[in-house]
């Protein structure tokens, strides 16, 4: 089935050398973030660093055409306890169209300045997206594959201004990260609150550093799984007609960024059968200091 999505990836090799060249020429840092696609851990962006990340979802709703959706993310560490992000979303649907589907602004705060067994993070997001958004960055309420099957021409007419709140709880136990997210989302136009969840667990394949620079050594790989789904809304707080997924994940830390893969398996009849995800993240260190240096304020 993955082969049927290859046409969506065709333009990538054309631009890949250019993209890689940009990052090879620039200094890059290695992020702490786990290779989750939906779940958040309590890892925030290091202060002053800018992470550029893309998350691609490839799927085919039943009775509809396959699609590829991409979320491009700029994530900046404003302080050690506050990370701010901008997402730009788009999608292309086979035998339909390619379109920009909106943007999201999000902020994550760590209210406690110390590391605890369970570390809370508060998440607040504003979304201005159309009904044609298919990035599946979260699943809430009664979201299902029927929402993803609408033709773009119809779906894009629905404009959603939404606020999303998440309570992120995350623990680092031994080499494992275990994260739980509780999601509530509100369409600001008189729609009920919708709820969802995401759970993730991941660990590096080797915890001890090998002592020599390497690309394929086990400590460069992180493996795990995440589960996510909807929990209904305030009008219908039930699991009926909700979507749920379980997705093994793997992340590979390269010298110029982090590559991650996941295949999500739908668990209910409302869910997509499969969601293939590919992620790329590259982190530019101390971006703020570049401007300080140019204005003569740097060291």
């Amino acid at each position, binding site marked *: 089935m993955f082969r049927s999505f290859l046409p969506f990836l065709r333009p990538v090799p054309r631009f890949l050398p250019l993209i890689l060249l940009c990052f090879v020429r620039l200094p890059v*840092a290695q992020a702490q973030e786990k290779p989750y696609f939906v779940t958040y851990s309590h*890892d925030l962006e*290091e202060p002053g660093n800018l992470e550029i990340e893309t998350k691609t979802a490839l799927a085919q709703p039943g009775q509809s055409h396959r699609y590829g959706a991409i979320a491009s993310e700029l994530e900046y560490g404003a302080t*050690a306890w506050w990370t701010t992000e901008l997402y730009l979303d788009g999608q292309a649907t086979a035998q339909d169209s390619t379109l920009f589907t909106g943007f999201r602004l999000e902020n994550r705060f760590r209210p406690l*300045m110390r*590391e605890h067994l369970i570390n809370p993070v508060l998440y607040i997001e504003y979304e201005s997206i159309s009904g044609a958004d298919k990035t599946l960055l979260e699943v809430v309420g009664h979201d299902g594959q029927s929402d993803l099957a609408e033709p773009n021409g119809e779906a894009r007419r629905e404009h959603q201004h939404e606020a999303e709140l998440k309570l992120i709880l995350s623990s680092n136990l*031994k080499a494992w990260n275990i994260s739980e997210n509780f999601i509530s989302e509100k369409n600001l136009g008189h729609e009920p609150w919708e709820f969802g969840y995401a759970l993730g667990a991941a660990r590096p394949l080797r915890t*001890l*550093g090998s002592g*020599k620079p390497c690309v394929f050594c086990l400590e460069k790989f992180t493996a795990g799984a995440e589960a996510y789904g909807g929990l209904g809304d305030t009008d219908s707080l039930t699991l009926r007609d909700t979507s749920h997924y379980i997705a093994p994940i793997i992340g590979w830390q390269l010298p110029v960024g982090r590559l991650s893969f996941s295949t999500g398996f739908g668990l209910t009849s409302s869910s997509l059968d499969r969601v293939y995800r590919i992620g790329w993240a590259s982190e530019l260190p101390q971006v703020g200091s570049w401007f300080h240096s140019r204005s003569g304020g740097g060291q």
Partner: protein
Amino acid sequence: MRRFFAVLCLTASAGLLLCAAATSHLDRVPQKDHTRINPLAAHPESVAAGSLVYRDHCAQCHRADAMGDGHKKPPLRSEHIRSATDGDLEWFLRQGDLAHGMPSWSSLPEAQRWQLIAYLRSIQ
């Protein structure tokens, strides 16, 4: 009278802040962490592995020569580091100092934190 109380509150707040700032972060290390010894100190690859961890995660702020940026990011070749125990450093890496810009490195595997400490000891 209201102005007097406002000045009093401000003075007391400033005093509390100064007291808090005067206390080193490492003074707050629990005893059980303070006495920990680096289990990888004698491991032959620890320093080399720690130098890679340093390059990937620390050099961006503290500079490749570990001399800091002369401003907010302090040097790591310092009396402060030399006088800290292995346990103090591991605790500090794990906790970070979020209020002052140092992230927590709890998501780095503990073994790599110890390797990093072995490297920091080697450059003093």
